[in-house]
């Protein structure tokens, strides 16, 4: 007799209860606290803030633990919360030139005003597993030199003095920056909109696309003009006040790629820019973003669009991991109504095919007999 497998409310509730149990794991192991995650898994928290587009370490840490460490799930949790928040206004553009820099490296100049500052980087560590970490030993306090009095101008500004690099930002004066979280995406996009989409785009996806440009699919000859990580001030213009009101500081990673450009019908030979900016500390993401940004400027600069990384609709439509994971994973939802319709069609076409084959075979036999 007919017993359909149907998911009732009880089944869902039980599944969630089991999930909560598995999330907590062995009860004899102390439960994670949010501050532990925010402090000790800081780069994971940064990624969640960056791709979740919400600068809040505590909520990001909560999302990480709630998602059992699944980054895309955590990003999703943060996005679904952020989207419900009312919008009070837009901050003034941040000045990364005035950043409280913790790390700043340039690959184009050996030395430059403000110097090279390595900061907390994995770059020269030997990737040897460290058993002492497992033992939970004490960690030495860092040595830090006092902040430089010297200003730390952005490398792109240094290059700009010589006129060898295109001007920064060519938006018309009356251009109001868009907001991809409030307005529908429409192609083709202005660069500000595209950069917003890239900044919350999936790290892995942008990394692979950026990598593809290096391997010859829309090669754009990049140099890291500069990467800087540190805190920038946020300010808000309040109509009633004659000055901008400081809101606090956020930590960001900025990457300025400098790309060689031989010139085209539209632009003279010069260096061009690719730009990356993300919340928190993530050089990989900022660099990948800068490579993609430059690749996506192909038509603006009069280059042929020949590779995936240059194709705005392709890149931007598929860079959002919350969208991507949703649509891929939705395939596990029931589709039996549609499947039934297809099943019927295939059966019908199959029957016709077999009838035809049988007829052919009979005919062949007849011919052989004759």
């Amino acid at each position, binding site marked *: 007799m007919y017993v359909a497998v*149907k998911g009732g409310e009880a089944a869902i509730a039980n599944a969630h209860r089991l999930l909560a149990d598995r999330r907590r794991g062995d009860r004899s192991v102390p439960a994670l606290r949010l501050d532990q995650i925010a402090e000790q898994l800081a780069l994971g928290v940064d990624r969640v803030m960056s791709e979740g587009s919400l600068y809040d370490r505590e*909520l990001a840490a909560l999302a990480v633990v709630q998602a059992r460490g699944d980054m895309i799930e955590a990003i999703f949790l943060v996005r679904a919360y952020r989207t419900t928040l009312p919008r009070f206004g837009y901050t003034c553009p941040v000045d990364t030139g005035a950043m409280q820099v913790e790390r700043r490296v340039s690959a184009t100049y050996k030395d430059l005003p403000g110097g090279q500052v390595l900061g907390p980087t994995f770059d020269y560590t030997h990737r040897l597993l460290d058993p002492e970490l497992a033992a939970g030993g004490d960690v030495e306090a860092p040595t830090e030199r006092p902040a430089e009095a010297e200003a730390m101008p952005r490398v792109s500004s240094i290059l700009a003095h010589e006129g060898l690099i295109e001007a920064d930002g060519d938006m018309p004066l009356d251009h109001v920056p868009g907001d991809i*979280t409030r307005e529908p995406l429409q192609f083709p996009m202005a660069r500000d909109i595209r950069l917003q989409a890239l900044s919350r785009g999936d790290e892995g996806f942008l990394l692979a696309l950026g990598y593809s440009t290096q391997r010859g699919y829309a090669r754009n000859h990049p140099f890291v003009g500069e990467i800087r990580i540190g805190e920038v001030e946020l300010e808000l213009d309040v109509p009633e006040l004659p000055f901008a009101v400081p809101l606090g500081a956020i930590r960001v990673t900025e990457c300025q790629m400098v790309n060689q450009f031989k010139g085209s019908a539209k632009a003279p030979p010069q260096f061009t820019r690719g730009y990356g900016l993300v919340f928190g500390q993530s050089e990989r993401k900022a660099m990948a973003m800068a490579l993609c940004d430059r690749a996506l400027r192909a038509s603006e600069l009069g280059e042929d669009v020949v590779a995936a990384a240059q194709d705005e609709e392709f890149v931007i439509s598929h860079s959002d991991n919350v969208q991507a994971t949703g649509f891929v*994973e939705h*395939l596990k*939802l029931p*589709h039996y109504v549609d499947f039934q319709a297809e099943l019927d069609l295939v*059966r019908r076409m199959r029957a016709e095919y077999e009838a035809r084959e049988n007829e052919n075979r009979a005919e062949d036999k007849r011919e052989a007999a004759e």
Partner: protein
Amino acid sequence: MSAQSTDIATYNFAYLDEQTKRMIRRAILKGIAIPGYQVPFASREMPMPYGWGTGGVQVTASIIGPDDVLKVIDQGADDTTNAVSIRAFFKKVAKVEVTTDTARATIIQTRHRIPEHSLTAGQVLVFQVPIPEPLRFLEPRETETRKMHALEEYGLMHVKLYEDIAKHGRIATTYAYPVKVEGRYVMDPSPTPKFDNPKMHRSPALQLFGAGREKRIYAVPPFTDVVSLDFEDHPFEVQTFDQPCALCGAENVYLDEVILDDHGGHMFVCSDTDHCEKRRGDPTTPLWGGRAEGAGDLATTPATPTPALRADPPHKGEGKEAE
């Protein structure tokens, strides 16, 4: 999605903030004003994944009020997991009354089906849409497809349907079958089986379509022409079943095939669970008892099934039946 009680995160009535609801309502109104036209809207992340009906949920969240009665179905059924989950969501964030009764609902959110019970004026049917663009699989670029709609250039779609006929002898589209709305826009009816297409034509209910991931809303106002694309010599036809529902005996309804065992035993039952249960609960319905048992007999047959077991395809009337 925890919340209300703690102060770390709280949510508005029906989850979305009021600014967002206004934005979505504007998109809906525009959609109603231009039937079948896909209105871009700034879709929000929802607390369920893209692909789970975020477009439909946003539409429902924007139009629902405290006095509404909500029904949610997936594959025609009220008790499939996702329908249960979306219903529970609105019970939680909007505290509205929910029902499985098609006639009693003021808003029906659906995935992949239109209820068998005919809808009435005042009801709103909200569809969850994965890919709103009917031309998408013919032309992947949004910039191009928008142009094609603007110029009413639908030749490509007709060529596709014609190629189907040339290759397969029939139009090989069984669900998400394209329709023309009010003689102007070609529209994707969402992945409902084409069986449901005629129900959209001049329906007294308002039909709203939400595609969250693709950020589009479109609408079919009440009593609007919705015509499935076809050719004079290959007229549009819906699937018909040559056996009734094995549980309630209903005919001319869409049926699901249920596999009973691993010997090819199967039976066909109503996809619309509310419709089926109503009929079974109604003493005046002539009950059909034979099929379920028949299938049971099949199940107990020890012989290995032959490929010819399904000699009678349950559907008929697919496109080119004459041959």
